[in-house]
């Protein structure tokens, strides 16, 4: 049971800001993902919740109690670290038992709880090993079990999957989501991987330069990005972004001129469109036309890249698409699916109130 509130959190080291004025209200049992590129302040934000860093200003509340000045041990949180932070001198069993021992949990309960936690992450047969005799995925499970065993109010996870290989990452991701639902704990999860964020989160906080750019459900941040950073960061391949200007309802960019749904005139714009919203058509029929720059078959679909006027534009088309690099092609999208951003500030523009624009 934990509701976590961050109120105007700032972390600075002298003149350097790690986190600027972050406010997030995390509901009990919510899975919140802090997402952003390295250096965006997401890990610092989590470490302040853990008590490993202290905010320069602002308040952190857990279940309404201000915890700013509490040591990590008094906050009732558990944390899984990027490189796991296992105790190399202890066996798996003793690693999982460690929190129970240092917290003075009655010894009679230890064995049952350690085995229960180990069972949940399927570690049962490895309890006598030392961490150095485990694979990366197994170490990860030990770290998880050590977090589970205490039944804390809140889980904090700092890029827990980044040291695993791609296949293991997918299966562990599913397990983490399952665990969070089973245990019914509040979870704060830090990652730079947008796929992890989209698949795991109830809500995602997209951060850049110490600021939360957007806080919303995965669908909201994907379909309705608040600014050009979120638009470009979320989605694979990234959203196509073309810089130009609009004149009488026509968007002009080098090598491009495409009609917008409304009569707009405005300089310094960035037009965005998602790859899956673009389709291939005959040259001259769509809004974009150029020679095919490259074709990337992904298995379930195929990416077609063109470079009209210099900026790369990617369309995600059906896997049975057959085209030749160098051949001329057109790309077409419903203008209602275009996004517009202010070229100077990066802010999302909603000029007409219709469609996405």
């Amino acid at each position, binding site marked *: 049971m934990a509701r976590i509130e961050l109120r105007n959190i700032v972390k600075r080291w002298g003149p350097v800001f790690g986190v600027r004025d972050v406010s997030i209200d995390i509901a009990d049992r919510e899975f919140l993902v802090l997402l952003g590129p390295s250096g965006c302040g997401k890990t610092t934000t989590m470490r302040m919740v853990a008590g*490993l860093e202290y905010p320069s200003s602002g308040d952190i509340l857990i279940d309404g109690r201000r915890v700013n000045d509490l040591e990590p041990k008094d906050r009732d949180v558990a944390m899984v670290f990027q*490189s796991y932070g296992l*105790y190399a001198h*202890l066996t798996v069993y003793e690693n999982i038992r460690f929190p129970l021992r*240092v917290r003075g949990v009655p010894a009679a309960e230890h064995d049952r709880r350690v085995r229960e936690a180990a069972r949940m992450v399927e570690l049962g047969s490895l309890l006598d090993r030392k961490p150095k005799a485990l694979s990366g995925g197994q170490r990860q499970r030990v770290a998880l079990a050590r977090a589970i065993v205490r039944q804390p109010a809140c889980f904090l996870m700092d890029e827990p999957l980044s040291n695993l290989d791609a296949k293991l990452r997918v299966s562990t991701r599913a397990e983490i989501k399952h665990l969070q639902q089973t245990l019914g704990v509040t979870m704060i999860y830090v990652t730079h991987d947008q796929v992890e964020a989209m698949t795991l989160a109830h809500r995602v906080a997209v951060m850049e330069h110490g600021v939360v750019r957007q806080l919303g459900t995965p669908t909201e941040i994907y379909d309705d990005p608040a600014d050009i950073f979120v638009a470009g960061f979320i989605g694979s391949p990234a959203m196509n972004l073309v810089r130009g200007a609009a004149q009488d309802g026509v968007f002009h960019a080098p090598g491009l001129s495409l009609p917008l749904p409304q009569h707009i005139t405005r300089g310094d714009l960035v037009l965005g469109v998602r790859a899956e919203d673009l389709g291939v058509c005959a040259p001259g029929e769509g809004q974009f036309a150029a020679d095919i720059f490259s074709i990337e078959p992904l298995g379930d679909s195929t990416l077609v890249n063109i470079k009209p006027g210099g900026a790369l534009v990617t369309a995600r088309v059906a896997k049975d698409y057959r085209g030749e690099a160098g051949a001329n092609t057109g790309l077409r999208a419903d203008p209602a699916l275009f996004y517009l951003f202010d070229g100077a500030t990066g802010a999302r523009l909603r000029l007409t109130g219709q469609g996405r624009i």
Partner: protein
Amino acid sequence: MSIDAVRDPDAPRRPGERLATYAAFLFLCLFAVYSAFPFFWTLLTSIKEPVDAFATPPVWVFDPTLSHYASLWLDRGFGWYFLNTAIVTAGTLLISIPIGAIAGYALARYPGRLGFWLLILALVFRALPRTAILLPFYQISRSFGIYDTHILLILVLVSINQPFTIWMMRSFFMTIPAEIEEAAMVDGCSRFKAFLKAIVPVMWPGVITTSLFTFLLAYNEFLMPLILTATKATTLPVAISQFGAEDIRFWSLSAAGAISITLPVVALILIFQKRIVGGLVQGAVKG
């Protein structure tokens, strides 16, 4: 690691390569003999009568004698000097290793610039020529009335070796990820308890390596005890230098002293061999 580096040592090699390997092996054998020769010569001298020891050409067949060792330990009070050295060395270790461990840990974890300057300061102190600080030590010891005492030598050796132990322990702690003690803090430890429970159990390779080097520095120190002691606290290196000086007849005695002084060190290094190498590697590369 490249594939070449892990190839099967028994795999067949080209003839030229094999020859080069043998040549390198032979060279290294000869070089080992060359390097060990002075020690070997000292060992021979210590069990020869002076008349054999200084015969020209060298005598290779002789009656070995332990009489020099007997006279050294029984008549010359070698045991007394040995005790002095043991007290001074143990005292130096007992003070400088805990300080080095705690300071090294703090400096490894402290992020600010002050830590950097403290380390530079320590290095500067370490770089001072000993002869430059010898006279102040002498005068201070006289005015405090601790000249020619164990405690003086311990304090002086601690102050000289402390920068080294701090640097060495710091670079060792840098190889232990901070996540380990952070995990312990989240798991329920205070800052200090996290150090005790999570860091202390894994710091022994670093402590042992640093202790051995500190031991060697204190055990072999010559200049400081030469000037800062007279009779009561004289240590082995100083005592030995005084045995040989008198006459060529005492050189065998001096050689016996040198061997006596070296054997404990050799024994220690053999005992801790694995730990030392492990500690050296651990300090050098992140593992």
